[in-house]
């Protein structure tokens, strides 16, 4: 395929052909890697999910079995609560930071985005330091109210942990979107008599809608699949990833674990596909 032809007319054709051949060659290592360590294993996972005693009906069992359904419901509720809270917090802080310059602003932005690369386990540890048995909040409430508040290992602590890793990511997206807002729209609204709250309600927030959808979807998908945080906070098996983990390692229930994983993967992928139609190709759960 890598042939040089001397004649002029076919030199272009020769170059194009060899270029395509070279391009094909370049894709081979990728094809091998991805096929061997991703596509094949995924196929195996789907098959395993259907290999248990229930067969293919194991997939439906996710919704029918009460324990699984409760876990799924908890996970969805937690992810939804995290998403809403994160969007609200990120919007208030993002708008404020993007639109006001004050000394130390760069530092505050750095502080808010610094936890971006923390693995879930570290986030869990952060929550323990805040709300665990020797945590800051516990010490503070002990001094103020004489009663030590320890909630790191409850749903509340888990929620806090999820907030901890969602906020940095969403703030960055929101701030980027705020920067791209067209100022003349707000000026036009003000010229028509709209006060500051009306401008937010009618122009700014609608203008940020695509960013809300895109980053909200990422936050939701990430929260659904989060494992490290729940693992560290050793909460009762209240979220789906933990359930999958215990089914696999403790109960050796491979089929169920596989089925649950496939289900979780499908839901996460679907949500992100939705976000991509609004947010563009740079969207991913990044983990």
């Amino acid at each position: 395929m890598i042939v040089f032809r001397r004649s002029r007319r076919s030199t272009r054709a020769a170059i194009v052909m060899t270029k395509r051949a070279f391009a094909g060659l370049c894709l081979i290592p990728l094809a091998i890697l991805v096929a061997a360590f991703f596509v094949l294993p995924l196929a195996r996972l789907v098959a395993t999910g259907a290999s248990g005693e229930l067969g293919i009906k194991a997939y439906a069992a996710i919704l029918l079995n009460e324990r699984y359904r409760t876990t799924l419901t908890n996970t969805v509720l937690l992810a939804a609560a995290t998403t809403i809270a994160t969007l609200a917090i990120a919007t208030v802080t993002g708008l404020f930071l993007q639109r006001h310059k004050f000394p130390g602003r760069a530092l505050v932005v750095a502080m808010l985005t610094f936890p971006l690369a923390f693995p879930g386990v570290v986030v869990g540890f952060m929550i323990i330091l805040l709300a665990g048995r020797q945590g800051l909040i516990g010490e503070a409430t002990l001094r103020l109210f004489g009663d030590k508040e320890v909630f790191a290992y409850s749903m509340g602590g888990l929620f806090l942990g999820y907030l901890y890793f969602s906020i940095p990511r969403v703030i960055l997206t929101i701030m980027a979107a705020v920067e791209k807002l067209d100022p003349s729209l707000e000026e036009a609204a003000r010229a028509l008599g709209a006060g500051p709250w009306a401008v937010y309600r009618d122009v700014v927030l609608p203008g940020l809608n695509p960013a809300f959808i895109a980053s909200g979807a990422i936050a939701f998908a990430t929260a659904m699949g989060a494992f490290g945080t729940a693992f560290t906070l050793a909460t009762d098996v209240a979220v789906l990833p933990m359930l999958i983990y215990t089914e696999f390692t403790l109960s050796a229930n491979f089929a169920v674990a596989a089925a649950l994983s496939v289900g979780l993967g499908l839901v996460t992928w679907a949500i992100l596909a939705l976000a991509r139609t609004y947010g563009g190709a740079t969207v991913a759960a990044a983990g």
Partner: protein
Amino acid sequence: MRAHGVALRLESCGKTFADGTRALEPVTLDVARGETLVLLGPSGCGKTTLLRLIAGLETPDTCGRILFNNADVTAVPIERRNVGMVFQSYALFPNMNVAENIGYGLKIRGTPESERKARIAELLALTGIEGLEHRRVDQLSGGQRQRVALARAVAAQPSVLLLDEPLTALDAALRERLRGELNRLLRTLGITAIYVTHDQSEAMALGDRIAVMRNGAIAQIGTPRDIYFAPASRFVAEFVGAANIVEAQCKAGALTLPGGTLRVVNGAESGIVLAMIRPESINVVAADGAAFAGLVDSVSFVGDRQRALVSGAAKNPITVDVPHSIPLKAGDRIGLAIDPAAIRLLPREGA
């Protein structure tokens, strides 16, 4: 048509931005009720800054005052100044349809819905876009968007209408057509209007008066005819239409040039002067016996006329507009007859 809107007065309004740029030198300006004043100038001359000061989007430097009908509105923010503003990019709200955009100002003021609907219908008819009420903004063409922006700005009966280069974003053919419609609309509404543009033909077609601006100051303000036929400086002369600027020795009401002599009307002064002659006010006559003559360098076809470059008449080649009835070619020797009233003497300095 009865005049609407307010009489506008700016007193010593200048603007220096936070980073130190002086966008506008202190300006004092009066605009009569119902008048359309055009702010004309190249980019960076301060015309948009001046418009934004009137709007209330910027505040003038200390000592500057803005008065609407003699009431001081300098400290009043734009939300309460009741101005109608048309932005260069139209700034239509993408989350609202056409009717909602137009009715927004009325909604903010708490106008009851039935009244709003009636007014919106009235405006749709006025701007010629009936039937588009429910369209979303991204489904509109450039011309339609411009009309919606206009309708929205006038819906709530503003005191003054401010237009920031509203036709610049459109292609040439559309611009011509909409210019006529805009003119008719402004006459019909009779509202006080401030119109910013860098296009001199637009300025002359739309303005009751034109303020030609440069480097943050008004170079000349007057009616289109004043500006065109009696420019106060070389800059204004060259900005508004084509102009031949020639240097000549003036004595006893006549200019002496390489190509001969020209009589002028206000030739009281003696010495070297700068004279402006518009290409269309030069008539081509026979070279023999002409007081002022030159040699044709080149002739170009401009559609409705010919444009000839004539050398030898003045220090630099002169542009002459010639009707097709007079055939010309390069190398012809021609005489140039100019009505003394059409020759305007300008102040010597480069401005």
